[in-house]
Structure formats: structure tokens, C-alpha cells
């Protein structure tokens, strides 16, 4: 019986839609800004989501579980950190657009520590360095970018330690 399981996954969006309706009734002037922001977020995530879908297809088509396990499995080591860091840094758009792709990678055997590193490394954006300098000056920007990477690796390290503790 699969119906209840499918229905269960729609409870959260149904609650969110209900919250929007409540806002519409209680604070009608806010519903237009809410819808505008929802539209903006949807448009922002459209391209990354399409890229993510295409990568999932390629992953399912060409990449074997053995390859993922070798590079980014539990014993991935430095190569796992390197690959997941680069992938996180170059990935674009809202983080949740990448969740379906990460789910596919996890199912293929990618270890949690590298998934965490991928997500954290998304904060490191060298391409935005000139913009950062324009707003905040070079010294702050340099420290900021360096610390972004430190946060990413620190998070991955804590994740690694928490995994070790559970083993």
C-alpha cells in the first residue's frame, strides 16, 4: 500500500500552503510580497535545479557505485575532501536545488562527511571576491573568504568526529 506514504510527503507543503492562506486572510497586504518572493526563489532555483537533474541523470547512467565509493566513500580520504570541496565551491544557486543530486550521490555511496563538506563549501565563492572587495574592502574580504573555507572544513571535521563516535 503506497498511497499513505505518498500522501505523507505532501503534509509539509500542505501545511506551508495553509500558512500562506492564513497570511492572506489575516494580513492581506502581505500576500503579494510573499508570492513575489516565492516567484523569485523559484526562478532563482530553476537553472540550478535543471543542472542538478541533468547531473543526476548522468550519475545514474554512467557512474557506478564502486567509483563513488572509491572517490568519496567512507575511505575516500583526501581525494574525497578535494572533490567535494571543488564541487561545493563551483555549485551555484540556492542550496536546496542541490539536495536531489546529493541524495542520488548518497544512494551511490558518498560518505556523509563529504556531503557535509560539499554543502559547507558552497559558502566559499572566489568568483564573488571582487564584489566583496567593492563592498567591504580587501582586508576584510580576504579574511572572510579564508574563514569561509575554515568553516566548511571545520564543519566537515565535526561531522567526521561525530561519525567516529557513533561507530
Amino acid at each position: 500500500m503506497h498511497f499513505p506514504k505518498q500522501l505523507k510527503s505532501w503534509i509539509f507543503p500542505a501545511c506551508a500552503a495553509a500558512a500562506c492562506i492564513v497570511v492572506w486572510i489575516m494580513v492581506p497586504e502581505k500576500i503579494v510580497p510573499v508570492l513575489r518572493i516565492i516567484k523569485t526563489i523559484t526562478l532563482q532555483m530553476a537553472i540550478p535545479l535543471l543542472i542538478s537533474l541533468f547531473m543526476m541523470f548522468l550519475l545514474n547512467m554512467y557512474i557506478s557505485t564502486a567509483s563513488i565509493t572509491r572517490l568519496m566513500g567512507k575511505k575516500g580520504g583526501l581525494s574525497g575532501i578535494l572533490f567535494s570541496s571543488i564541487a561545493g565551491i563551483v555549485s551555484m544557486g540556492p542550496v536546496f536545488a542541490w539536495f536531489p543530486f546529493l541524495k542520488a550521490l548518497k544512494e551511490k555511496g558518498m560518505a556523509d562527511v563529504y556531503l557535509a563538506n560539499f554543502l559547507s563549501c558552497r559558502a566559499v565563492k572566489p568568483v564573488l571576491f571582487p564584489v566583496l572587495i567593492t563592498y567591504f574592502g580587501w582586508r576584510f574580504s580576504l579574511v572572510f573568504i579564508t574563514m569561509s573555507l575554515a568553516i566548511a572544513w571545520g564543519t566537515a571535521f565535526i561531522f567526521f568526529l561525530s561519525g567516529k563516535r557513533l561507530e
Partner: protein
Amino acid sequence: MKIGFPADSNTLDALITEKMSNATWLLVVDTDDMSFEAVPAPQMSARSGAGVQGLTLLLEMDAEVLMIGYIAPHIAQPLEKSGIKVITGVSGHVEDKVNQYAELKKSRVSTPQKGVARGAFKKTMKQFSSMLPVLLGVIMIMGLLQAFLSKDLILKIFSKNSLMDTIIGTFTGSIFAGNPVNSYVIGQSLLELGAGWAGVCALMFSWVSIGLVQMPAEAQAMGFRFAMVRNGAAFIITIAASLLTVFFAGVW
């Protein structure tokens, strides 16, 4: 192809047990992508016939092949007759046996490329559709929160105490998502309006690295524990990194 195992734990590293009644977990692994389902095995102490109950469970989980150390012939025969392949004398780790079986299958059968592409497409759509409802929910919640969280409101909640502002900034940034440039613009405006550097810095860090509102989607994709540990760890490190950043950048 789905392969069923009686095992001693609920991971792919689990050891295959000799008999169905010795198992603490039942695993069904899909050889296409190594995804697996695990359910606790019926316990012998609870009631008799745990082995048969375990087999029934594996069949309900759509196992097409059963790998086990030993199974009584009078149980194996009906299974074989109903199309379930039974392989006995198996021991070792689940993952190794699945890989061996998949390799063996691959060497015997050459699947047409068109079929593989269709399979990959179907699988991609299945993976995506399982994430779609929660993604829609996250987008709606973010729309609601961002519509109510104005720049003025954020400024009001900053306290001028560096540590408190860092915590507030981290929390606020983790509610938003999107292009990091937006966080730079908001950060710059907040500085102009008199907010402290530490809070602004924390807001910019957490904008991309923490996702409180997106947590349901993250938990759906990678598991609840993963989402909790990752966001929790990032939250604490972001606070420390923000304070260090303003110190080293000379804007304390």
C-alpha cells in the same frame, strides 16, 4: 535487481547471518544503485517461526534473490518455484556480495544502451519526485519568512553586543537563502544603519552555509541526523569564525 539478506546490522557493512533466525536486521539492496531498505528482523524470542516471518518480510520488500548461509530445503523449494532465486552458503559482508553478484550479472548480460538511458531517466525522476513536495514546502515557508523579515526588523533585533549580535546574525542569515551577493548588499546596508561588524559578518556566513528553513528538505535528502549535525556544527563554527574574522580584519 533486489537482493535480500539476513544480517547483523542495518548498514551495507553488515555481516550476512548463517540462518534467518540469527538475523537482527533484514536488508534488501538494489544492485542498480546500492540503495537499500533495512527492517528489524522478527525475533525468535518474541514468537516462533521467526525465519518464515523474515522471509515473508523480504518478499514484501520485493527481494528477487535471497542470499543466506543456510536455509532448509523445504523452505527454499517453494521460493524457487515462485521465482525467487535462493543462493545458500553465503557469508561475509552484504556490500561485497552485492558487488560480486552485480559484476557477475554484468559479465553475462549486455544491456542495450537505450534501456540503460530509460532506466537512468526513470530513476532520476523517481529520486526527484520524492524530493519535490518538501522543496515546494520550503519555498513557501521561505517566501513567508522573508516577506515578514525586513531590514529594519533585523536592525532592531541587533543588540550592539558583539557576541549576541553574532548569534542573532547567524540565526537570521540561516533563515535566508539565495545569491550570496544579496547578503553582501543587506550586510552593507545594515553597517550603514549602525549594525556591528560581527553580526553582519555572521549573517553573511550563515546565509550560504546554514539552512534552518531548508532543514526539512535536507533531512529528507540526507537524513534527520545529518541535517541536525551539519547545521548545528555550522552554527557553532560560524559564531566563532565571525568573531575571528572581525578581529583579524581589524574591524572589531
